[in-house]
């Protein structure tokens, strides 16, 4: 049983850290604000609960476990909505998605 838990938690931690590091790489390498947002938010939203899950599986059930559950839920709720607000703000602020940029160059003037 404890071996199973160890393996599970190891897997969760591994997957979580992989997601985190890919998120970091994506944030650094991808072109354009919206691509970067995509990389950052998706990886964070899954990676954080996975790492926390890995931690939870390793510890005795206690108040700390409950708090970790709260953190995971919290981040799963706040992270997407923060990114949503961010992308909205970026769109309002005049940033254009890369796909639009080529086509949008001429109708930019007609919109404003």
């Amino acid at each position, binding site marked *: 049983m404890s071996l199973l838990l160890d393996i599970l938690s190891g897997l969760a*931690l591994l997957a*979580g850290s992989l997601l*985190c590091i890919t998120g970091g790489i994506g944030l650094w390498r991808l072109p354009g*604000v919206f691509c970067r947002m995509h990389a*950052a938010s998706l990886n964070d939203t899954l990676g954080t609960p996975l790492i*926390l899950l890995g931690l939870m599986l390793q510890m005795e059930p206690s108040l700390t476990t409950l708090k970790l559950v709260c953190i995971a839920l919290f981040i799963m709720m706040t992270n997407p*909505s923060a990114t949503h607000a961010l992308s909205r703000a970026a769109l309002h602020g005049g940033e254009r998605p890369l796909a639009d940029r080529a086509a949008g160059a001429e109708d930019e003037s007609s919109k404003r």
Partner: protein
Amino acid sequence: MLFATLIALLGAMLLILARAFAGPSVYDRVLALNMFGTKTVLLIAVGGHALGWTGYADIALLYAMLNFIGTIAVLRFFEATASDAREERT
């Protein structure tokens, strides 16, 4: 495994910081700030668990909350400043 996770987190933090320094637009920086906060939460949780700190979960929870508030505040005030500037121009 925990230490591998820690190293992965620190590596991700470095990349995020690089983006925060370089970030061409403000939104990149806000994004980096938000992500950096999440990574700090994880760093405290994992590090606290690995090194046996007491009471780390409270602090991680607090971070998760304040990070959200911070991001929303940054956006709200940034929008406010930007639209003030736009009004000035017209």
